[in-house]
């Protein structure tokens, strides 16, 4: 009932490119991948920059080839129906497939029944609505749904099912285990990994494929967020400036990070290399407001404290904090207060950074890709920097790393994820034994 969860595989699709190496190398270089949106015409939008995966169009043949290069033997059987049905217009499906295939191969898993019995727990964002599907049935100021049957539309119409990416990943890997979709907004990815670790710890599963994929880089996603006022109005690569005194909003990003998590003993027995261990996780709810975090950070601090307790660690054991760090006026100081509440004096000493300035806010996938950044910290002994953080804010009085990464070996990392409406998650990783 207390098996430890080891991460044995990592797959990433990020604004730096395809693959974990592109992601790690981008962070290691202190680079920025936020730039002008290319996948649709965003010139007229208030938000014209994003952390966009450098695939303006998801080409089915190219996707099949990329998946094949990652060892996926069922790529064509999975991708071709998605392409025929129009589902690949939802970019997060392709991102999830690529990340899952990479993680599976990285872990050295195969086609045996034991591997295929893996559970799948994915954090996913909103269903994507397809504006172009409505044109044939829009008439006289209304949508004529009853006119639709004869319209020349693809089988996936109007929107993708919320679990479409999970279904596709399940088929791609040929899994037979249970599938769960976590839709807890920006905390979904972290909660998916926490869920996986709990399944391992309880002995419910031996192997779990977990993580998250999301893309809101589409007209309704960017448009809806713009109307909400969340993105920075700046139309420049430094739109998102976490913890900086001048911060004025987030940059939207897209991508995926998927992990293979398995019982440490199983990984050892099959000779797999453990990259990190999931030591503890905690979740709480602010119970405060729909549109703002709890300013005192009390509930977020409780999530961090719970993660520490489950990991059996003291605050001083933490060597690095990957912050939620959205770069919005309200989030960053609330998160710093949470760190002070949870970590006490150590909050002023532990290095803190946010990678959202570099790649944007990946929404449902944010917690997952930020855990991947923690894996980099543990395996490369390199703490990612905070892109575009230059002017210290007295309201954010923690040790925020600047844009450059810092070489340092740490034993334990904390990753925070705070979702819409006050959904808090904290996950602690440890160096693999």
């Amino acid at each position, binding site marked *: 009932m207390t098996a430890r969860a080891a991460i044995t595989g990592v797959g990433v699709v990020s604004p730096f490119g395809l693959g974990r190496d592109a992601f790690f190398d981008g962070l290691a270089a202190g680079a920025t991948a936020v730039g002008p949106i290319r996948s649709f015409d965003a*010139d*007229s*939008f208030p938000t014209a920059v994003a952390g966009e995966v450098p695939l303006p169009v998801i080409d089915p043949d190219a996707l099949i080839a990329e998946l094949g290069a990652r060892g996926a033997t069922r790529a064509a059987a999975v991708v071709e129906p998605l392409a025929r049905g129009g589902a690949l217009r939802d970019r997060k499906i392709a991102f999830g497939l690529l990340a899952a295939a990479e993680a599976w191969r990285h872990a050295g898993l195969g086609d045996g029944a*034991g591997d295929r*019995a893996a559970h799948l727990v994915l954090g996913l*964002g*909103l*269903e994507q609505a397809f*504006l*172009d599907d*409505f044109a044939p049935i829009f008439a006289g100021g209304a*949508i004529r*749904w*009853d*006119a639709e*049957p004869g319209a020349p539309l693809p*089988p996936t*119409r*109007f*929107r993708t*099912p*919320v*679990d479409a990416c999970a*279904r596709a990943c*399940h088929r791609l890997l040929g*899994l*037979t*285990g*249970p*599938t*769960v*979709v*976590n*839709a*807890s*907004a920006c905390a979904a990815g972290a909660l998916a990994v926490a*869920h996986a670790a709990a399944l391992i710890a309880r*002995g419910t*599963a*031996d192997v779990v494929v977990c993580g998250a994929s999301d893309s809101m880089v589409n*007209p*309704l996603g960017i*448009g*809806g967020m*713009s*109307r*909400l006022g969340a993105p920075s109005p700046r139309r420049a690569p430094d739109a998102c400036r976490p913890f900086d005194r001048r911060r004025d909003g987030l940059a939207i990003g897209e991508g995926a990070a998927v992990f293979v998590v398995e019982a440490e003993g199983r990984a050892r027995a099959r000779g797999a290399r453990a990259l990190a261990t999931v030591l503890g996780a905690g*979740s*709480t*709810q*602010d*119970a*405060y*407001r*729909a549109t703002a975090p709890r300013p005192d950070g009390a*509930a977020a601090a*409780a999530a961090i404290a719970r993660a520490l307790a489950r990991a059996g660690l003291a605050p001083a054991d933490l060597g690095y904090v990957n912050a939620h760090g959205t770069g919005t006026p309200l989030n960053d100081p609330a998160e710093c207060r949470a760190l002070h509440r949870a970590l006490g004096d150590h909050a002023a000493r532990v290095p803190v950074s946010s990678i959202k300035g570099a790649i944007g806010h990946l929404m449902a996938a944010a917690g997952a890709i930020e855990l991947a950044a923690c894996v980099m910290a543990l395996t490369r002994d390199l703490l990612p920097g905070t892109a575009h953080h230059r002017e210290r804010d007295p309201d954010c009085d923690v040790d925020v790393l600047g844009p450059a990464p810092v070489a340092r070996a740490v034993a334990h990392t904390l990753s925070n994820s705070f*979702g*819409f409406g*006050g959904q808090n998650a904290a996950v602690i990783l440890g160096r693999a034994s």
Partner: protein
Amino acid sequence: MSHAVGIAPVTIAAWALRTPLGRDVDRVIARLCAGERAARPNPHPGYRCAAIAPIVEVPAASRHERYVSRMGLHGMQAAIEAFAASGLAAGPRLGVFAAVGGLRASWADLLPAFRDQRDDGAGAWARGLGAIHPFWMLRHLSNNAHALLAGELGARGDGATYAGATAGAAALAGAARALQAGSIDAALVVAYDSLLEPETLVELGERRAAWCGGPGVDPSAAPAPYQDDAAGAIPGEAAAALVLVPAARDGLARLRAVDGADGDREPRAASLARAIARLGAPAAVIDGAARAWPDLDAAERAAVAAAVGDDAMLTATTAALGQLGAATAVVQAITLAAALRRGTIPPIAGLRAPSPGPLALPARAVATRATAAIGLSTGVPGLVGAVHVEVAGGP
């Protein structure tokens, strides 16, 4: 594999629901046992899907209307009602676990954005997207009802929102895990879904997953599931909430749940059988997924019979309530527990000539001394959720 077979139970302390057959649990059970069907003609005659099972009641007026859609409000209000009935206190030891079917967007909200769009998407913001309501995004976030509910009640413990066809079972399983880990003292589980949004009805009709009937055909004549002439399910909608506490406490029933068993490389029956096996608890009454297509139904019956024996009773509350998507598992937990407490198993509404096969299929309500039942819910393709409820001593 070293999977622990068998799921530890938790206790149901309170419940509430909103269904096409009403919101009072005892009254809903009475109507189920009377064989009532909630199906009514689809008021939009151009749809292939011929019948729907809607919730007639509208949600109470709420200050949250600007953030949450109709079904989210139904879910919140059922949850608040269930929590009040539990008599428990909110705070940092109360968790909230939610299940939603998906976006189910209210497309009418987007009409101003669609009106002047060009096919190539050029100038989309100026052509209408800039006119969408600032809260449009909030209204369509997957966890909006969850977040607002936590705030309304002051629930600050663990929480998560699950999505998809079997999200209800996932939310129940997630809540049970948190209770058993000791991180919370009580969990409020809320599930809501509607399959009656226009695009869903269009899709279900085109795939023939929904009963399409014919011109002027009365929905009450729709063939029931598990008949040779079954030709699709009736889309429905529901919201339901449970308050769960640790198994050591007394309550309305014991509950076990498993989430999302699946199998793409094998027959669906294998997924069903594995889900029942993972529950690790016996039951002689099954509430089937009842997809209402002969091949799917036959596979389900074979799998259920293999798992629990040929003599078990197979009913289908969805024949009366309609298919309820992500809300199914939570509604099943309530209706099955309430039926067992009453000592009566509801019939398969509309069942006239069941297909040959294993299991006893009730055409009328059946008195029972059974104390345990299993509810199955399936999505497309192959996802399975399963709940097991057990009451003390029967009627």
